[in-house]
């Protein structure tokens, strides 16, 4: 079913034929229906309407994976969503969330239109419908007031991962109002991005080139089920295991729980929770001791590998080699991780022998951060085998050449506001490496006598449910004087809103989004609105922002010189033409030829004008530049020395600043001192409900646990030995209690987890979320304490200890 093939003939005649056949099929059923009516006297079976078939090219925004989709419509009604075969991320495929997208479009519990709170916070019954004008006028007036009072910085934004125009407009919105408090809530990429920043000096989420790797050492958990871009990763995995092409990569999972990635893997190496970094450095230590590392890369591109005299302090600075030899003896690593010396040696030798071997740091899901220590150690492992910016290695994504927006207008109020320190503390002290810290913002709101945040906008985020401190956020949202939610379906945070400005569903808006995290190539995806009009009285995120700034007036509105959203998108896309590179997606190209031509300064665009490019982008679904140039060292190694930092200097400077002592090699894992009977909490995000969304849709609730042992409820996985020790059984109902609170869960006794571990899925336990999510299961994020890991200052879900208490039945 290739779109291109069909464009060559007259669609109308073809549709006539199809409808005829379909009618013939349905006629038989109708007869059955009549018969049945005679026998049972009941037949309410719906008969879906027939109509002309059409396809609309759009994109999936059920997660931040960035899949291009093609929506099949009958009589203008969308009936099925599939991947857009031309799209480089989806390649015609989708994940279960993308497949279930129509249930979110047609969800019966979506907000009917804007609402204002008239009763107490915390309940959906407290809301009353209002007109858009009234809602927008009110919010705009309050924001204008903040500016007039000279404290625009008391506006905060809590956002999810938004890669479309709405996200770019929100960034600009915060800048033009004059607030630095633009805060992102999902934290799944934080630790890996920090590791890249420290070692390579690049601010980006690294990309793991799985498909060209030969041996993959996956740490922690969910590299296949919930990577940054799930379909892109799973397609790469398909190619990694392409036996038809004579390739078969080996996948090894190292971690305390045998996730789905671990089930699919060739080998699972169970290790003590929190000892991932130690294992990685143990492997590193073998590579160095046995001289299996890439001497060329380490010598030419690396730094702090060998000991060196420190020119300033006049005493020796210890390099990675010495540290590994001194601190990471195999016996010690084996004791800390619970893995045999034999296994560590075996892994190291296989990893070094592979062409190439790729190590991927603990990926827990879109919401849960890993620990910087783990990600640094794993990244060092990649560098030791020279697998940086090489095929099958760790790549740095390239920027997308959308046309830059005009400068912000001169605005002293906004300038002053933007210069105020961030309320979440990101970029400073303990949080120096972070660009935002959602939980830090919630704490700041609660810490002061009056909330420093006067108004908060919540877009594509649900911090009162899907953050590492949901209860703190709930209390914080109770305190903020003006909470504006842009949710489309009621979510837990919208229960604490004063105003609800419901966004349209992605399939109801057109959009232009940039490359999702996890893909190396610059990509722009165009999404067309599938429905002519939104189902409900809703507006697109971009339109809401534009309508707010118009009401706020000059000089804020001046920062948005576009007549409307479509003209913004068209303007931005002109940058693709100006970049003189890349092609409309789906254009066949010969890599070697194009590279040679581009190298010689030629570029054959395949379209004649900007307008033609824009038209073709909308038809095909996007633009990309598929050619990744490996080994662009000046782009991917941007440390002051231009070298890979085996022992990042910045960490030492940070230590000096914050008075900590965070040696890269300090073993700070929570491997000991657990109180009697306490278990290490291990959270995971099943793909269908990852990122805190998905439980609203019945088709996704049904597939949370692929083995179908569990569904529509929260479970806790424990090892048979643990179950025996605690005298609990498979299927018992228990209370899982931490120092912060407790939730109820069903016990699943399984060898998927190590003894001493309690593994619980994240994504259930909503207070809102519509009829299929509300009150289903429990939210284990409520169990997390405010503990942070020492190196990066990230919240550390792995530090939580829980007890299981049998519930009376």
């Amino acid at each position, binding site marked *: 079913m290739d779109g291109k093939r069909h464009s060559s003939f007259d669609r109308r005649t073809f549709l006539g034929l199809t409808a005829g056949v379909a009618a013939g099929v349905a006629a038989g*059923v109708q007869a059955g229906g009549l018969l049945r009516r005679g026998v049972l006297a009941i037949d309410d079976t719906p008969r879906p309407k027939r109509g002309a078939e059409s396809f609309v090219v759009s994109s999936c925004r059920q997660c931040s994976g960035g899949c291009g989709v093609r929506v099949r419509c009958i009589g203008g009604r969308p009936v099925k969503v599939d991947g857009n075969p031309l799209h480089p991320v989806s390649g015609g495929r989708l994940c279960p969330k993308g497949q279930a997208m129509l249930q979110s479009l047609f969800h019966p519990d979506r907000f009917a239109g804007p609402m204002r709170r008239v009763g107490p916070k915390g309940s959906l019954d407290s809301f009353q419908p209002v007109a858009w004008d009234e809602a927008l006028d009110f919010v705009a007036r309050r924001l204008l007031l903040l500016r007039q009072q000279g404290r625009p910085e008391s506006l905060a934004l809590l956002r999810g991962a938004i890669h479309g125009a709405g996200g770019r407009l929100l960034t600009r919105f915060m800048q033009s109002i004059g607030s630095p408090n633009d805060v992102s809530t999902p934290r799944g990429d934080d630790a890996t991005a920090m590791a890249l920043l420290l070692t390579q000096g690049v601010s980006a989420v690294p990309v793991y080139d799985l498909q060209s790797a030969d041996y993959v050492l996956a740490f922690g958990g969910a590299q296949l089920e919930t990577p940054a871009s799930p379909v892109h990763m799973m397609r790469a995995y398909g190619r990694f295991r392409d036996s038809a092409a004579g390739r078969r990569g080996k996948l090894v999972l190292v971690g305390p729980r045998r996730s789905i990635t671990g*089930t699919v893997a060739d080998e699972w190496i169970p290790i003590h929770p929190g000892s991932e970094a130690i294992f990685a450095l143990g492997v590193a230590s073998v590579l160095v001791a046995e001289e299996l590392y890439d001497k060329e890369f380490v010598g030419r591109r690396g730094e702090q590998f060998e000991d060196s005299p420190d020119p300033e302090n006049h005493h020796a600075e210890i390099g990675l080699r010495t540290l590994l030899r001194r601190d990471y003896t195999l016996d010690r690593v084996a004791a800390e991780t619970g893995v045999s010396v034999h296994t560590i040696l075996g892994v190291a030798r296989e990893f070094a022998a592979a062409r190439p071997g790729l190590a991927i740091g603990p990926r827990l899901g879109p919401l849960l951060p890993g620990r910087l220590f783990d990600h640094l150690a794993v990244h060092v492992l990649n560098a030791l085998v020279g697998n940086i910016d090489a095929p099958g290695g760790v790549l740095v994504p390239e920027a997308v050449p959308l046309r830059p927006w005009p400068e912000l207008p001169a605005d002293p109020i906004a300038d002053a506001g933007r210069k105020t320190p961030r309320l979440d503390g990101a970029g400073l002290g303990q949080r120096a490496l972070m660009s935002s810290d959602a939980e830090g913002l919630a704490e700041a709101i609660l810490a002061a006598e009056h909330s420093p945040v006067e108004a908060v906008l919540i877009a594509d985020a649900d911090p009162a449910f899907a953050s590492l401190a949901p209860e703190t956020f709930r209390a914080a949202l109770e305190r903020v004087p003006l909470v504006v939610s842009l949710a489309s379906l009621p979510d837990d945070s919208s229960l604490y809103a004063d105003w609800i400005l419901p966004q349209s569903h992605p399939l109801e808006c057109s959009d232009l989004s940039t490359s999702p995290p996890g893909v190396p190539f610059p990509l722009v995806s165009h999404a067309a609105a599938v429905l002519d009009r939104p189902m409900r009285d809703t507006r697109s995120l971009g339109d809401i922002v534009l309508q707010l700034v118009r009401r706020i007036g000059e000089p804020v509105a001046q920062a948005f010189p576009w007549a409307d959203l479509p003209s913004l998108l068209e303007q931005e896309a002109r940058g693709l033409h100006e970049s003189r590179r890349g092609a409309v997606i789906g254009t066949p190209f010969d890599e070697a030829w194009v590279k040679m031509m581009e190298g010689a300064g030629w570029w054959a665009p395949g379209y004649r004008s900007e307008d033609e490019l824009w038209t073709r982008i909308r038809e095909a679904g996007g633009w990309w530049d598929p050619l990744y140039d490996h080994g662009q060292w000046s782009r991917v190694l941007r440390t002051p020395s231009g070298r890979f930092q085996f022992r990042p200097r910045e960490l030492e400077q940070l230590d000096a600043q914050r008075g900590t002592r965070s040696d890269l090699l300090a073993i700070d894992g929570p491997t000991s001192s657990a109180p009697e009977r306490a278990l290490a909490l291990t959270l995971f995000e099943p793909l269908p409900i990852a990122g805190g969304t998905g439980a609203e849709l019945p088709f996704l609730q049904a597939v949370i646990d692929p083995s179908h042992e569990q569904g529509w409820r929260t479970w806790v996985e424990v090892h048979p030995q643990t179950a025996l020790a605690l005298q609990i059984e498979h299927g018992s109902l228990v209370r899982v209690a931490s120092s912060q609170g407790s939730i109820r869960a069903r016990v699943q006794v399984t060898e998927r987890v190590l003894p001493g571990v309690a593994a619980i899925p994240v994504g259930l336990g909503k207070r809102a979320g519509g009829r299929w999510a509300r009150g289903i299961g429990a939210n284990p994020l409520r169990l997390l304490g405010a503990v942070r890991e020492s190196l990066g200052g990230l919240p550390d879900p792995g530090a939580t200890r829980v007890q299981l208490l049998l519930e009376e039945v």
Partner: protein
Amino acid sequence: MTRWGMVIDLERCTACQACVVACKVENNIPPAGPEDAAVGRSIAWIRLARMETQEHGGVSSAQLVPVPCMHCENPPCVKVCPANATRIGEEGLVAQVYPRCIGCRYCTTACPYTVRQFNWKDAAWPEPLDQALSPDVSVRPRGVVEKCSFCHHRLMLARDRARFEKRELQDGDYLPACVESCPANAMFFGDLDDPHSEVSRLAESPRAFRLMEELGTRPKVTYLSRGD
């Protein structure tokens, strides 16, 4: 002769269940709630089954295997149906004729792969969820059995398209919804009798096996085993 068959490569399958959800959307399967799920009455034409395996170190592990209807060449379900409501039809597809089904459920018992499901109640789609229903697939009334059809309606559509373009049906023209969606490219579909088709080649692979072959059902779904 054409004989439609499927190959599922377990080496590639990531147990993501895109196939499961794609099937539900394509085939107008009604949403079920927790009550239905608790008593095993939520319908899925393809599901992931757990197969326990013993691995080195004594750690038992489960492999997750997608299981649609096997479209057996020698289908036990057909033999037991008293109403002739299930039959092996054109090109080897085992079809369920809803208007004839009397709901006796002999077939659900006879199918060794337990892929047949009974409609215990009237299908319901709270408004406006019903707007996403596809006219290509009839909605099943209460009291009948249903199962995977290999998206038979897609075969008819594909044939129409080919006829319209005045050409023969080609390998890849007709794919069930699950196969089309699979992100890991673990599922293949085509004519097992065509020696040049991808499925017929893969079905000959040394890794190929079929579920419960010993029962003589002659399934047309082939699995490729994992192994190093």
